[in-house]
């Protein structure tokens, strides 16, 4: 009887100690695996199909509850979008931290890419991509560093590559890699690459990355071709838990893509 009581006591103490260690072992939290739900969405000329209203985008995004979103084709105070700051408005509607990266000045305002995050940015920087001869328009990558509640930092980028030729896309993707593959920090890039899976841009230049998405088409709204991607790095330290192309939204000429991913 006494032995049984002592055995129970030891078991309870051990359980409490284990829980305590799991809850407060900070180094475990900072080095252990972590999950994120990430999205990439080209919003089509800053919401042209919604009359430049952010509400339909917010309603759609809210259903999928992503932690971080890469956005493309956003306007900041242009004539065509009636002078609104689409990124901040969408961030406010979702309660997320927004950042906009300008690629060009356009229609009295700016045009570019953005990132929304549930967690605060440690740093942000917009880096212009090279424009080889034949490039239709200046492109850029918006690079953010985000501190997660676990104490881990992740690099998250949004981009929109040129659609002129595969050669130009490859040069831009190469520059993207130079900006993003500097170290082994967990890194995600999402965007409209304007390149199909068999192109040199994706098959060769983006080869160091783990593709979180499959080859299902992503554009237009009723999709026929695959040009939107989510990539993770280091390749061997991240994996896809789930992935979805959200077709037929009626609010863009691209489908948003969403992936739940895990980093070791």
């Amino acid at each position, binding site marked *: 009887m006494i032995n049984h009581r002592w055995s129970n006591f030891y078991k309870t103490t051990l359980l409490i100690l284990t829980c305590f260690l799991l809850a407060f072992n900070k180094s475990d939290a900072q080095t252990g695996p972590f999950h994120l739900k990430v999205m990439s969405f080209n919003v089509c000329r800053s919401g042209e199909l919604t009359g430049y209203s952010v509400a339909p985008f917010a309603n759609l995004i809210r259903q999928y509850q992503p932690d971080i979103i890469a956005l493309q084709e956003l306007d900041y105070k242009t004539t065509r979008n009636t002078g609104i*700051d689409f990124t*901040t408005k969408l961030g406010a509607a979702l309660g997320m*931290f927004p*950042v906009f990266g300008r690629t060009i000045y356009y229609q009295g305002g700016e045009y570019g890419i953005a990132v929304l995050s*549930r*967690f605060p940015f440690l740093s*942000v920087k917009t880096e212009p991509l090279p424009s080889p001869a034949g490039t239709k328009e200046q492109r850029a990558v918006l690079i953010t560093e985000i501190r997660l509640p676990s104490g881990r930092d992740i690099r998250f980028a949004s981009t929109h590559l040129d659609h002129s030729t595969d050669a130009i896309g490859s040069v831009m993707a190469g520059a993207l890699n130079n900006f993003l593959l500097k170290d082994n920090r967990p890194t995600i890039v999402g965007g409209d690459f304007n390149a199909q899976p068999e192109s040199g841009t994706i098959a060769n230049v983006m080869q160091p990355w783990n593709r979180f998405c499959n080859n299902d088409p992503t554009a237009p709204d009723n999709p026929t071709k695959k040009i939107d991607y989510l990539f993770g790095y280091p390749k061997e330290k991240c994996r896809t838990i789930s992935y979805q192309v959200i077709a037929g939204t009626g609010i863009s000429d691209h489908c948003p893509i969403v992936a739940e991913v895990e980093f070791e």
Partner: protein
Amino acid sequence: MRKINILILLAVGFSIFASCGKEDDSPPDLPDGGKHITYPIQLYSRLNNSQLFNTDDFAAVIGRIRSSQSYLTILHRIDAVYNLSEIRNPMVSIAEETVKIPVFIWNRYAGTRVEGSGILVGQTIGEMRNIPTSDGCSYFSLPLMANESINMNFASITFENENQLAAGVATIKEKLDDKTVLVGIAGKILQEKLKSAFPENDYPIEIIEGKDEKTNQIIFVITSRKWAVREHKEAPVGADGISCFDLEIEKL
């Protein structure tokens, strides 16, 4: 021999006089006003290290920001909640209402809350950085542009305790350049340590205290000698204990 001594004394005296005349670090003569550009900066705070808003009523602050021509607005301790069931981000809501770009200064996570301050500016940003210097403390820097060149390197940091101050001083000194304007917050009890870390002869530092004796924090402004705090005044905003500090910072 006596003549030589007099000559040496004259030479030493002249060289001291001449070197004083060439002193680069001496503060430039302050103009009478109107000769240089002045940047109005607003800081909203309770100066007691508590959250800026106790409710979702931001109307008084929004109204004041809208009615002013501030170059930059600081919303001290405008914490966010990242939990999906109650996600809220007052800084971004206020930015939307006042048509500004929001940038967050991250200090720490506290449960599902993100503690930090907000910066609102009237231009999109190309770059921003939070450099964690110690637990709960980050050095924030934001280059603000004018005609494709950096106009002002805005910086900020909040010190709650001596450890944070000790760890943050080196970063401030390392980053301080001719374009830096640092507006920080520190515990009142750190005032003397702050002054000794940034001696006035080497670093122009302006300490601003709130009118309310119950506050336990101060505002400090550190710049190079290319800038000067021209004026500062405090006004209550709403009836909930929030103060707005209007700082006039002049580029010399």
